[in-house]
């Protein structure tokens, strides 16, 4: 039985910048715990002789030549920005104590 504590959920939520109520934390602890438990079924398999895979598909070396392609016009790049001055994306002041 895999248990996910409320503390775990709170930490994951904070890393994902999600604000959860206490009730939601309870709720997700149970739900996510269930998901984890389901995945842990895989633990029953003996994989000690199997080379770990770095990728789900067994391919490698997909590379492109170093050639430039046109970029987006600035106007398009900034089109979805919550705030912009027409040249830059604008974000609330970033705190760095100097």
């Amino acid at each position, binding site marked *: 039985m895999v248990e996910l504590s409320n503390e775990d959920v709170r930490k994951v939520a904070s890393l994902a910048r999600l604000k959860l109520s206490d009730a939601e934390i309870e709720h997700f602890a149970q739900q996510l715990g269930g998901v984890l438990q389901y995945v842990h079924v895989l633990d029953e398999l003996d994989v000690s002789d199997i080379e770990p895979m770095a990728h789900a598909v067994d391919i490698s070396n997909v590379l492109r030549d170093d050639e430039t392609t046109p970029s987006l016009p600035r106007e398009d790049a900034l089109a979805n920005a919550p705030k912009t001055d027409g040249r830059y994306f604008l*974000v609330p002041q970033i705190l760095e104590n100097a």
Partner: protein
Amino acid sequence: MEYTTVIGLEVHVQLLTKSKLFCGCENLFNPDNPNVQTCPVCLGLPGALPVMNREAFRLSLKTSLALNLQIAQSSKWDRKQYYYPDLPKAYQISQYDLPYSSEGCVEITVPSTGKTRRVGLFRAHLEEDAGKNIHDESGRGGDSQVDLNRCGTPLLEIVSKPDIRSAEEARVFLEELRLLLWYIEVSDCNMQEGSLRCDANVNLHVQHNGETVATPIVEIKNLNSFRGVEAALEYEIRQQAKKFEADPEGYRIGKVPKATHGWNADRGVTFEQRGKEEAADYRYFPDPDLCPVTVSDDEIAEIRATLCEFPASRRHRYVSKLGLSDDVAGVIIDQGRRYADYFEAVASECGDGKQAANWMTQDVQRELNERKVEITEFSIPAAVLGTLLKQIVAGEITVKSGREVFIVLLTEGDDGSELETSRVNEIIAEKGLKVEQDTGKIESIIDTVVTRNEKAAEDVRAGKLQAVGPLIGQVMRELKGADASAVRQMIIDRLTK
């Protein structure tokens, strides 16, 4: 207080590719035109897929070979998750547990001790750079501006072992690393433009009551000049020593959390930055959008063949084979690979390394500075300057005449002439600068001059050697090309023997 300083550096180097690491946007420093080098991939728009730049990986391999790093047969890419406005995807594509290379070293010579030291490297890995945040400096808490031109450009992270033992060694290590990467042309290493950036980890191993105790590790972020690295570390070392003396039981590794500091170059102090999320919180996992890259021995051999002689080896050769002093060899090497190539071509043409070095560091350097150009844009080709210096070395013309020819060459070159080596002797002939080797002719001119200047000749005979000056001048004018000291001796011999 007796202690050993322990420093490790983390260096970030931007690679010289045309396009970004995972998309075709231009990889160009362009701060005056923000947000014009972006696309759905580097903006992190949903559904966009990254494809690895072959050249970026090749330059990474080249760097590893130069740094004696072992190259992994296969490596993969991982996502490092964190939120910051300059990282629109909210993760950076980097390498975590399978970097493409590990275990290398850089050899440095420390000026103050003259000793050679080997600084180990843990690893080098390839990752994407973030964009640039520009903070409101007014203090009124205005918005920060974000420019994503740099976002997704290829960046190498090179991590040294904690083998560095002083602030000076840290600076020298960084200087040597920069020279090396600049010479092998994987990066322009321009620190003003942020192509080379450095973080330093430092602590002290103190001898205290018969045991060795370590002070907490402090990481100093974003050091962007050689002097900054040295000064910030010197400051931090002093601070740690002070703190340990004040509290030898409490100020110890493990008892105080690892701190992250910034460096204020204007005030010459480090300052505490807000704690970043712990390494474990980056939640690295393999990027499903990118597949592993494998490297064969043949590919490695092919890249190895493109490496040039390294700056340290060149510097050594200039001293041992060409007879230059350590300082002069260093000055030439520090000007970059193209400059050193030019110097070597001149030296080999004229057959005298010291003569070539003198001209490079004085006459050529002066003209480059005046014109604000690089050696590659200099209007006198190396073979032509070499031919000129050869005439001086052979005693065919004097150094003074050489300067005259140099100026003519320069003027013609600046006017757009394609200078040929044959032009050197043409100018010497046109100006009649060839040193007169016919002593009979020189003696007859001396006779004429002496007869014309009885008073001066009398003074010289009477032992007033300063009177010889005007006589030399007159002889030299008649001869044009002659060795003044030889003429002086001949006049004195003629009058006093």
